């Protein structure tokens, strides 16, 4: 008992008042804490978990991620451009904290295993000395005059700004009769226990295909069932589609093997002794289907554990699974509540050519967290991020080098921009990385923003947004098959565009 008390006394961030409270110690919470500390914004980090890592302590089930960390890449480890080739490491200014996930990878794949990812995150937290109050459960939230009060298992916290970084790992099922009888993806058993079984998997997104891939050597037959056809990443040109590494079941389906991928809506599920009966109706082609299966797995996705925030007026969308957010990831309806991590998908952005942000994954949201920290510091605590001046002759080469190599722009296409502004007295200023939706919609001084975009044909190219007298125009520069955007042609195009502005 004495030891327990002593341990409890050493826990950081005791209940009390803090300028900012972050809930969550996954990659979103850790990245935000790191960035806030660099800016000198005092904050507490609370986590219900026993240690850092968030969802990577539990998922993905079959051990390997779907985002790359390339040990050998066109950019050297430890440089800023390398982050584009290493989507899983958190971002840091100190070399000892950078590119940590590849340090732990054994070379068997350029997708880290869950264990390798978890070690990278734990090491980041340890080396950067990121503290969190672990084992502290967020239980309730109240709005106060100038912020929020959080009721936790350890006591009450008050703060001016709340950053919710709780992930999107709460199992979710649609309201189909009988689906409550079916285990969710998170309760999928060891693959060998499905030996010689007929398995119905409800869902044709990554988690559905992940399970199908794991069961291929074991299941007698696999039926993948969902209303819409599978969207593949190589077709959608985004990580929103099913990733190539899970395509074996799809190929099996295409060749007519033991896997069937069917476009059908599940009407209901019944138990039949030890098994299940699934009733479904065709969508892209009409037809009624009844499947008797030994096992059914609901790979129907996840939702955000938003606690009682809806009661404060938090608007949500995507069937109540995501909060509606401003371009700086603040609730559109409850100012002062911000989000970090995968929930930053709630700020949709421009979604040009249908390509969503990459905010659902670490590769994208780690950049959001840095931008969020800068925004919080300025908006709530009057801590201004330096905006270095840029000489006029440097503007074009600088913007082109950014769109060629900046990981923020490559990880977050049409979503995060490098912005330069013009001040009549102070000259050209580097405004840093800014959400594109904010730049094009919020107004401001004359300025230029550059982003990377991918068009309908799949070509990557720079796009420039120029603001003159409050009006923003879009200009798409040429693509290049080798992604070289620093050619004389690009130089000439951009120089002409910025003529008279910068």
């Amino acid at each position: 008992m004495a030891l327990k008390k002593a341990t409890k006394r050493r826990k950081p961030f005791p209940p009390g008042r803090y300028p900012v409270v972050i809930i969550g110690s996954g990659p979103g919470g850790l990245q935000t804490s790191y960035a806030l500390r660099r800016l000198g914004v005092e904050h507490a980090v609370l986590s219900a978990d026993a240690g850092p890592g968030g969802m990577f302590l539990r998922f993905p089930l079959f051990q390997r991620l779907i985002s790359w960390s390339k040990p050998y890449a066109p950019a050297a480890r430890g440089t800023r451009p390398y982050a584009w080739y290493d989507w899983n490491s958190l971002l840091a200014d100190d070399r000892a904290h950078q590119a940590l996930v590849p340090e732990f990878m054994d070379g068997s794949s350029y997708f880290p295993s869950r264990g390798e990812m978890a070690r990278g995150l734990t090491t980041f937290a340890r080396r950067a000395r990121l503290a969190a109050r672990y084992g502290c459960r967020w239980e309730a939230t109240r709005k106060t005059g100038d912020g929020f009060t959080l009721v936790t298992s350890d006591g009450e916290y008050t703060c001016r700004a709340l950053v919710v970084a709780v992930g999107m790992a709460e199992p979710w099922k649609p309201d189909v009769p009988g689906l409550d009888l079916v285990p969710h993806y998170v309760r999928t058993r060891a693959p060998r226990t499905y030996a010689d079984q007929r398995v119905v998997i409800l869902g044709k997104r990554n988690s559905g295909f992940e399970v199908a891939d794991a069961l291929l050597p074991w299941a007698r037959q696999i039926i993948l069932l969902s209303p819409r056809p599978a969207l593949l990443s190589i077709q959608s040109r985004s990580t929103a589609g099913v990733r190539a590494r899970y395509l074996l079941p799809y190929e099996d389906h295409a060749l007519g093997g033991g896997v069937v991928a069917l476009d059908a809506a599940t009407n209901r599920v019944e138990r039949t002794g030890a098994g299940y009966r699934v009733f479904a109706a065709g969508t892209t082609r009409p037809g009624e289907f009844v499947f008797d299966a030994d096992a059914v797995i609901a790979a129907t996705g996840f939702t955000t554990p938003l606690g009682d925030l809806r009661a404060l007026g938090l608007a949500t969308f995507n069937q109540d699974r995501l909060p509606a957010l401003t371009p700086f990831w603040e609730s559109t309806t409850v100012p002062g509540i911000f989000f970090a991590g995968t929930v930053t998908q709630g700020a949709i952005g421009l979604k040009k050519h249908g390509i969503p942000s990459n905010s659902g994954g670490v590769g994208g949201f780690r950049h959001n967290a840095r931008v969020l920290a800068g925004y919080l510091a300025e908006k709530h605590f009057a801590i201004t991020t330096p905006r270095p001046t840029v000489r006029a002759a440097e503007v074009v080469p600088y913007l082109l080098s950014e769109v060629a190599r900046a990981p923020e722009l490559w990880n977050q296409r049409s979503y995060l921009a490098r912005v330069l502004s013009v001040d009549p007295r102070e000259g050209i200023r580097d405004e840093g990385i800014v959400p594109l939706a904010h730049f094009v919609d919020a107004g401001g001084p004359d300025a230029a923003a550059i982003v990377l975009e991918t068009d309908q044909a799949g070509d990557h190219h720079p796009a420039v947004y120029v603001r003159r007298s409050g009006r923003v125009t879009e200009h798409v520069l040429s693509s290049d098959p080798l992604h070289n955007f620093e050619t004389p042609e690009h130089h000439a195009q951009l120089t002409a565009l910025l003529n008279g502005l910068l």
Partner: protein
Amino acid sequence: MASQVELIDTLAGLALFADLSRPQLEAVAHTFEEEYFADGQRILRQGFSGSNLYVIVSGQAAVHVDGTQRATLARGDVFGEISVLLGEPPAADVVAMGPLRCLALPGPEVEGFLLTYPRVSYRMLQAEARRVRTANLWR
């Protein structure tokens, strides 16, 4: 939108999807993504390429051409289809007037969707015909 059943019921009540069977409506619910826009937020941006197609589920939106309001859109209205079909940037801004919920279909998926559900194409054609007839063509 609280649940999938509610979303499908809502879709069934929109003229655009009125001819679809229940399973087809489920496929629509999985193909379009629900998006929420706060008051004043822009959904379509005049002159910007790569836009998508939207159907209003609840709320209202204003159509602005060069900063002047030209029309108001409401539940069931479709917008963004002209720029997607023609492959041209929108000729207007569409801005949320109060909280707005839409279903969005990525531009590159529109052709395949309309070919899969010809009754939706026909309904969309009817809506365009009405716009032409009333000379309420804001594009």
